[in-house]
């Protein structure tokens, strides 16, 4: 895959010291302009799971569908692609905490000092999902989370959220907070990242998306903006209807 110049400069250079071909350049006499110097976002591709096993994916899809349940107007987290979003994020830089400071010593601090755990999001999910399913199997006669009734699923998640469940391998509350945040971010992020399929979340709230010009509307006070959302790769209305 071809990497654009700027991607190397802005992202890779400091992480892969010595291997990235980052330029340290002298700028003189003119703007160092070149076409397409920026790099477009890297879209999530459809297809098989990249990070999750199929069992893990089933659990995550079940969780995201309780965090954002389907209703008659708007899809739930599963249909909106939140699990796909999380899968692609965990397979990428986010899953590895890339760019964050990961030097030691690691020691616990106050809440105001922020996260101090060496556990990456990818590790947290791997252990958290396994621990959640084990917890469910122990408590619900061998059933995994995805096989529970909606009521039982919600009860389990409420217990996690309230720090009422103790996992051996992972911190259940930290895991829940992480998947809650990731699910909601995937629901509202641009659809190119795998969630917010067909811009369902944006349509639900009335957010017009990645538009860049509201000059005609800034002074039209207290009027509902009439246009449907657009994403980075365009509008769903531009997709030809299936015949």
């Amino acid at each position: 895959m071809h990497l654009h110049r700027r991607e190397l400069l802005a992202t890779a250079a400091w992480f892969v010291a010595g291997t990235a071909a980052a330029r340290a350049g002298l700028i003189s006499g003119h703007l160092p302009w070149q076409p397409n110097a920026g790099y477009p976002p890297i879209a999530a591709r459809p297809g098989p799971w990249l990070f999750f096993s199929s069992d893990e994916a089933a659990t995550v899809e079940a969780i995201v569908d309780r965090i954002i349940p389907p209703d008659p107007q708007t899809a739930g987290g599963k249909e909106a692609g939140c699990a796909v979003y999380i899968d692609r994020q965990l397979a990428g830089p986010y899953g590895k905490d890339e760019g964050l400071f990961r030097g030691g010593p690691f020691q616990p601090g106050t809440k105001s000092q922020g996260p101090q755990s060496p556990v990456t999001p990818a590790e947290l999910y791997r252990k958290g999902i396994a621990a959640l399913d084990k917890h469910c199997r122990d408590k619900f006669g061998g059933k995994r989370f995805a096989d529970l009734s909606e009521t039982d699923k919600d009860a389990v998640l409420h217990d996690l959220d309230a720090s009422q469940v103790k996992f051996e391998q992972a911190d259940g509350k930290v895991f829940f907070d992480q998947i809650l945040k990731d699910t909601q971010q995937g629901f509202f992020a641009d659809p190119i990242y795998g969630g917010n399929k067909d811009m369902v979340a944006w349509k639900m709230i009335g957010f017009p998306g990645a538009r860049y010009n509201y000059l005609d509307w800034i002074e039209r006070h207290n009027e509902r903006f009439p246009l449907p959302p657009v994403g980075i790769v365009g509008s769903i209305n531009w997709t030809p209807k299936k015949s």
Partner: protein
Amino acid sequence: MARKLPHKDVVIIGLGWTGSILAHELTDEGLDVIAIERGPWRDEATDYPPNYAQDELRYRIRHELFLRPDQNTFTFRNKMNQTALPIRTWGAFMPPNGVGGGGVHWNAETWRFLPSDFVLKTHLTQRYGANFLPEDMTIQDWGITWEDIEPHYDQFEYLTGTCGTAGNLQGKIREGGNPFEGPRSRPYPNPAQKQGFGHTLWAKAAKELGYKPFPQPSGNMSQAYVNPLGVRMGPCTYCGFCEWFGCGNYSKASPQTTILPVLVRKSNFSAYDNCEVTKINLDGSGKRATGVTFVDSQGNESEQTADLVILAGFSIFNVQMLLHSKIGTPYDPVANTGVIGRNFTHQCMSSVDAFFDNKKFNFNPFIASGAIGMCIDDFNGDNIDHGPLGFVGGGYLGQVQTNGRPIETTPVPKGTPRWGAKWKQAVRDNYLSNIKGGSIHGSMYSYRDVYLDLDPTYKDRFGRPMVRMTIDFHDNELKAAAFMANKYAEIVKAMGAHTIEPKPRKGPYDVTTYQTTHLNGGAIMGTDPKTSALNRYLQSWDVPNLFVMGATAFPQNAGYNPTGTVGALAYWSAKAIREQYLKHPGPLVNA
């Protein structure tokens, strides 16, 4: 062994706002200037094309434009008896990276401080008596006055095309502007931006309560503008992706849209990008800078000698550079000696969320600019009598909502579950009819136990000690926050909100919660080398051929965004260098 580069007249560390201004001013003087920038070159439309710049996940959530903590971070603790731990991911503030510095990602809120802010200690002591101030508060006068700085505010506003309504033109108070501002020599170069429904309704309510609302001074263009250097900007389109984002529309004032296109064409200017200065070098006397050492992204080391060194990084990195270069005496809060790291401040932000009947109110929160909004200055600085209040300082209050980006701007009323069907319904019901984070831009004054020094444990990627932040809120700031949050709540009540949630800042200072990127102080300006690192011209007391730019020099923070003052100080310092220093290189003030 460091590669030695050809000698230059001036080396500038950092090519953000102040580096660009100093480079422009000193090249105009005929000097041969090189700037060395840690991050990449960044341009406008090529880097942030409007077909993919509106990406909340990438820029807002994943921090695309900012320095990676992996490259440089700090340790943090609230109190001196705690162990500081590294900031592993940014939260409370967002250190910029790359050409343009914070001028790329800012909202472009372009304020002036109040005349009394520059003589704060004297002013407050005269009005309330010395005993009125908390004992451990270490506020100081700046060493300059309104008359010194006003022409340079004007200069920066005309460079950047600030849009606003003058409230005090040469001493005449004008309707619709901020009546509390210091007298300005000229009107703003551009009329104020247009305002949305929420901003307008807030201003109407504020006016009915007897306050004096005015449009926030904005560096997002209300119309096309050609600045004095001949660089042209286009009108802002209110896209709602401003702060944390680059503007591909040439509508947000930044070094890229105001100064760099001219600067880089000068034959006596050059710059390195992706090169990080690690040290300012001194001669054997320790009183003269000989230049800088820097590394490129391959780890190759170079030495750039120069007659004059301008330190123009983001505030806290300037302090880091001084500590690592052993310039000036490090501050010791116990002995109360030394100056480098002293009077470090941030901001004490508060907010109020308000929810309205969605059948009657539709705010279209996504239609906004970075510096849109209506504000009042009635509670800022010393604009009210603090005698009965028991605190000093304040802030502007404003309905300055900049966006409706749904990951961060989908608030729900208190009591709503964090997830599930009820959360989803509440998001749907409230998105278009709430005002989130109504801004109370609180000042943060300086204290003896709020400071920067070097960490005893954690090292940066060069193996040097990290800078350690010791910072917490004091009662004075928290009292001001509670007072102003109540005033703000009264305004949104008058707007017709059905649910009002005041969120006055509470302690402790929390490094995970975004406030602003307004870190200040640590190498402050003043009149006495015992209590300041820089003289009134931003010249180092210890090394007279070193000038230090930026909010680093603020003795304490005021209740405003700092960039207008940072830009004005840069012009003030550049003038002193041009008119005084170059004629007689040496200390401009004899201590």
